[in-house]
């Protein structure tokens, strides 16, 4: 019987704190101007630490998690999507982008009141839509100053040291970006604050990877639906000190759960991973899995979009050694930028932009180390950036001997997702794997 409790469970103690941090974040952004502060907007993996040199009263709003919040509110989301379509934009564009644009067009903030207009836009470019996204935002908002850094220099395995011309390309743009930030805001730039933010981001993103690595344990201490609510902090504010502190605290709590065999779900029997963003309005899909004793223990998406990893001496994956841990003292701005560029370029969720086969290798690694029984791939019509190469990933995983289920959907446009049909697929998949409700 799949519902039989095999393990003890306990709610996560830090749950409330994660929620609070997220609420404060959106509030601080909205209220920044009242305190003479600065607001900026950019993507979830933008090189945010660079803005820290402008002062401690600089607050950001990152577009993907903001749009995911909209998507979770189906009614508001539909109004946003329709507003964007009415403005002439295609329905098959990135659904985060369309939700976000809609929120601007309607001038409604998902957390109440009018949309708090940013003072500048600070983006980076890895997928086709990233820089186009804010080009349109700038259009829609009547010309907000906009700077975007191109990070697409090929896979990390090709980078040969901190002085590789590929790193130079990024670092050069970052230097230009800092000059631009000073000019745009009229503020003097503080390199010490930049260095601190770089160290904080390295600390936090490595700690998040450690948290995910703890999920290799059986029973898994976390299930993916919960992980979404935790990893989101990194997508909002990976360069903030509070974020790094939180992930370190979380690592301790998850370690405690592992040590005491505290499970995320009591009836864990079948371990899966997912891929790409889920349909945010339908996370109940993950609860449905539990009826079969199945748990999604994570994905390259939850592990590697924010988490920064390395191969440990024993050959397994864990959080990357931070510059501080390696005894590297960042000397100056250029040094900070080189370290920061290198750190971000090693992001697992950036490698697949150049080759799905690199992603397949990482997925097979996860399947092995996290001891998976199968894989559930979300062919996500809402995000071409994370869905790129997904069909090849499927072929690669099957070749490696892992059963794969696929379902089509959309992370942010419910018109392209069918929960009933997807559950029917889960039924068939579980049946083939031999698990019963």
């Amino acid at each position: 019987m799949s519902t039989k409790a095999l393990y003890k469970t306990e709610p996560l103690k830090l749950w409330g704190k994660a929620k609070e941090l997220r609420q404060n974040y959106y509030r601080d952004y909205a209220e920044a101007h009242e305190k003479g502060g600065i607001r900026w907007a950019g993507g979830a993996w933008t090189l945010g630490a660079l803005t820290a040199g402008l002062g401690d009263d600089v607050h950001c709003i990152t577009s993907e998690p903001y749009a995911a919040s909209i998507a979770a509110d189906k009614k508001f989301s539909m109004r946003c999507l329709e507003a964007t379509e009415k403005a002439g934009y295609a329905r098959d564009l990135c659904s985060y982008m369309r939700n976000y644009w809609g929120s601007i067009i309607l001038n409604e903030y998902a957390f109440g009141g009018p949309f708090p207009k940013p003072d500048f836009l600070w983006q980076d470019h890895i997928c086709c839509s990233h820089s186009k996204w804010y080009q349109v935002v700038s259009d829609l908002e009547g010309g907000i100053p906009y700077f975007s850094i191109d990070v697409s220099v090929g896979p990390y395995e090709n980078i040969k040291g901190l002085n590789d011309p590929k790193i130079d390309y990024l670092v050069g743009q970052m230097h230009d970006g800092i000059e631009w930030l000073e000019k745009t805001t009229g503020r003097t730039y503080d390199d010490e604050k930049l260095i601190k933010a770089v160290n904080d981001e390295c600390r936090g993103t490595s700690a998040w990877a450690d948290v995910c690595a703890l999920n290799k344990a059986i029973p898994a201490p976390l299930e993916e639906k919960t992980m979404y609510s935790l990893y989101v902090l990194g997508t909002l504010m990976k360069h903030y000190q509070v974020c790094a502190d939180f992930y370190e605290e979380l690592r301790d709590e998850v370690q405690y759960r592992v040590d005491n065999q505290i499970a995320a779900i009591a009836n864990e029997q079948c371990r899966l991973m997912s891929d790409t963003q889920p349909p945010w309005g339908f996370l109940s899909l993950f609860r449905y899995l539990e009826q079969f004793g199945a748990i999604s223990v994570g994905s390259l998406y939850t592990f590697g979009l924010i988490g920064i990893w390395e191969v440990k001496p024993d050959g397994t994956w864990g959080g990357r050694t931070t510059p501080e841990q390696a005894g590297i003292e960042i000397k100056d701005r250029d040094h900070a930028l080189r370290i920061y560029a290198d750190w971000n370029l090693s992001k697992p969720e950036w490698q697949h932009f150049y080759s799905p086969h690199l992603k397949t290798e990482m997925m097979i690694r996860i399947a092995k180390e996290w001891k998976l029984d199968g894989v559930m791939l979300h062919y996500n019509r809402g995000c071409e950036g994370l869905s790129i190469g997904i069909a090849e990933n499927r072929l690669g995983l099957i070749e490696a001997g892992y059963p794969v289920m696929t379902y089509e959907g959309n992370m942010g446009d419910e018109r392209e997702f069918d929960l009933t049909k997807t559950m029917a697929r889960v039924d068939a998949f579980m049946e083939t794997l031999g698990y019963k409700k």
Partner: protein
Amino acid sequence: MITAGIDMGSKTIKVVILKDGEIIGKSIELAGFESREAAEKAFAGALEAAGIAQGDIEKTTATGAGRKNAPYTEHEVTEVGSDARGVRELYPNARTVLDVGAEEGRAIRTTDEGKVLDFALNEKCAAGAGAFTESMSRALEVPIEELGPLSLQSDASIPMNAQCAVFAESEVVTLVHAKTPKQDIARAVHDAIASRIVSLARKVGFEPDVVLIGGVAYNTGFVDSLERALETKIIIPEDPEFVGAYGAAIIAAEGL
């Protein structure tokens, strides 16, 4: 031992009654709005054909999209499971099952032992093979059962967009306006639908023997298109739309 399998499809409901491995009764009904009523009617029909009463059935397994609404049922199995089981019983050498019904298309790869290795279902954008042929038969003003034979008269190959039903439909309109012979359009329609099913088959890595089941298997034009695209002979059972229910009835018997 008497068991029953009921396939609650989106358009039709099929019941098969099995006695010691032999089919002793079967029946099909349109699902309509009240699928539960239709299911009871289908059951009644099958019971009558078998000459037994409801109480004689030891176990019933339901399959199909609407299986939650099936009456007299103790047990459920997915369409993937029932299709694979039914086909394996009929054709032990089958390794690929294609099931093309009104709303859904499905490709299943099975192992030498008959276990499901992988399956693929059509996505929203390529849905409704059966429903699509029906609307095309209306557009061409040809009864649905004549659409197949009509297309067999054609040897013209007109490319038609296969990705999206809406686009394909507009191409049909274009062809009608251009006074393209009906048989050529019919063949183009079947080629387009077959191409979607072939895509699914390729996704699961089809291997012979390939068995086609589901109501659309009656359409000879579609079968011809499918065979040309797959470059392989396709096996079609006698009652292709009953295979799911048949598989469910076998599974019911195995569970006793």
